């Protein structure tokens, strides 16, 4: 089944590879001063989004925004554009709106798994390439799970905006929602550094866990931290993520259920 799906959707899978290549190159160029000596650290540097400390840097926020824009444009935008372009003929064939939601969810899950699979391969290869690898398997899997759920949340939320609003407006709203936690983190870091723990409670900000433990290296004179989560904090993050995921799926269902948008006009 997975093979069949991949073969049918090879165009979008090629786009995912392109996205990862661009994202990886940008990360590599801006982080070339440092290579972590463990798998988790490497994963966080190259695939884990933006570090807390980096959220105070305009360059890193712009970089994060570029990668996010590319991600939304190539994956959820493509999924929703395809449905919207031929909406009525597609929708009535599903007969039930929940079936359309299921169809979108399956696509999201496949793309997320594929995205993460390629990421993991790259991270493992790069870690072998540059350092003797020090694997902390359990922690790596923990981070992989939270970052996968984070990706799913972003997909569902942006699909809600893209479906509910015009595609271009939906894209802007999606980007605002993705970048907002990073900007809030930056503001907290700059103005209230003693309250840094607050960053953990910002919704949609559970993909990067580098700030739970003290820093171990410096990048552009900014201390950058990476470490695994203690179990109780991990479970807290996981519960928050599940709640966010349920809200985002419900949002998409709401957008799909709004029948008055189908076909657009009421002239006749």
């Amino acid at each position, binding site marked *: 089944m997975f093979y069949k799906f991949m073969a049918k959707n090879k165009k979008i899978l090629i786009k995912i590879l392109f996205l990862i290549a661009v994202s990886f190159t940008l990360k590599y160029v801006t982080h070339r001063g440092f290579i972590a000596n463990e798998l988790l650290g490497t994963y966080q540097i190259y695939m884990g989004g933006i570090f807390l400390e980096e959220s105070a840097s305009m360059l890193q926020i712009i970089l994060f925004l570029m990668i996010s824009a590319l991600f939304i444009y190539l994956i959820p935008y493509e999924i929703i554009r395809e449905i919207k*372009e031929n909406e*009525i003929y*597609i929708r009535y064939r*599903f007969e039930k709106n929940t079936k359309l939601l299921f169809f979108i969810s399956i696509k999201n899950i496949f793309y997320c798994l594929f995205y993460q699979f390629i990421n993991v391969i790259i991270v493992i290869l790069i870690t072998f390439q540059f350092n003797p690898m020090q694997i902390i398997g359990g922690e790596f899997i923990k981070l992989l799970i939270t970052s996968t759920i984070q990706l799913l949340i972003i997909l569902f939320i942006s699909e809600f905006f893209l479906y509910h609003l015009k595609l271009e407006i939906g894209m802007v709203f999606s980007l605002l929602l993705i970048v907002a936690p990073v900007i809030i983190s930056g503001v907290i870091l700059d103005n209230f550094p003693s309250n840094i723990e607050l960053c953990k409670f910002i919704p949609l900000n559970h993909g990067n866990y580098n700030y739970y433990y003290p820093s171990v290296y410096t990048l552009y004179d900014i201390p950058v931290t990476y470490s695994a989560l203690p179990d109780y904090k991990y479970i807290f993050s996981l519960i928050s993520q599940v709640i966010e995921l349920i809200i985002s799926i419900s949002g998409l269902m709401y957008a799909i259920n709004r029948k008055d948008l189908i076909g657009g006009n009421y002239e*006749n």
Partner: protein
Amino acid sequence: MKININDISREIKSNMILNNITLEFESGKIYGLCGHNGSGKTMLLRAIAGLIQIDKGEIVIDHQTLHQDIDYPPEMGLIIETPTFFKYYTGMENLLYLAEIRDKISKPDVLEALKRVGLDPNDKRTVAKYSLGMKQRLAIAQAIMEKPQLILLDEPTNALDQDAILQFKKIMTVEKMRNACIIIATHNYQDIDELFDEKIYLNSGKVERVEKND
């Protein structure tokens, strides 16, 4: 298949676009929804298709109430006024994509549907390069390819030339023989008048009169 429309109404921006409509449709017949622009025929068709919510009344399809038991009528084929397709796919690719959703028919069925409407299945042009008439033929093909029990067509003869209209009439006759329930909304009903078993005239969202063809 039996469709009962029981006293339905819909108001949009203070306009009653559907006003206390009660009708009944059954299999093996072709119904014409006739009326000038703005009479409510397209909205009635959309209401039956489950594409708009109604404020009052109910639409019951084979003992299942629309929007309560089902979101859309089961086994429906539909054309709306402006045909939309994936512009950068060929006609064949478009139909294959749609056919995969229900997964009831295979490639030969799609080929046959294209041939029935007079389109070449081997045409490599994308839909973006199709004329309006070709798009309309493609829309008819997508509506009939899965041999649905209910066929709802909104202005299906728009942009069709006389040969294509003749072909369309033949297709509809075959579909009727197959025992499908066919409802066609049109303002050019003179072209296809002989197809209809019943003509329902709408005006300002109300049923003005119903004529049965002998």
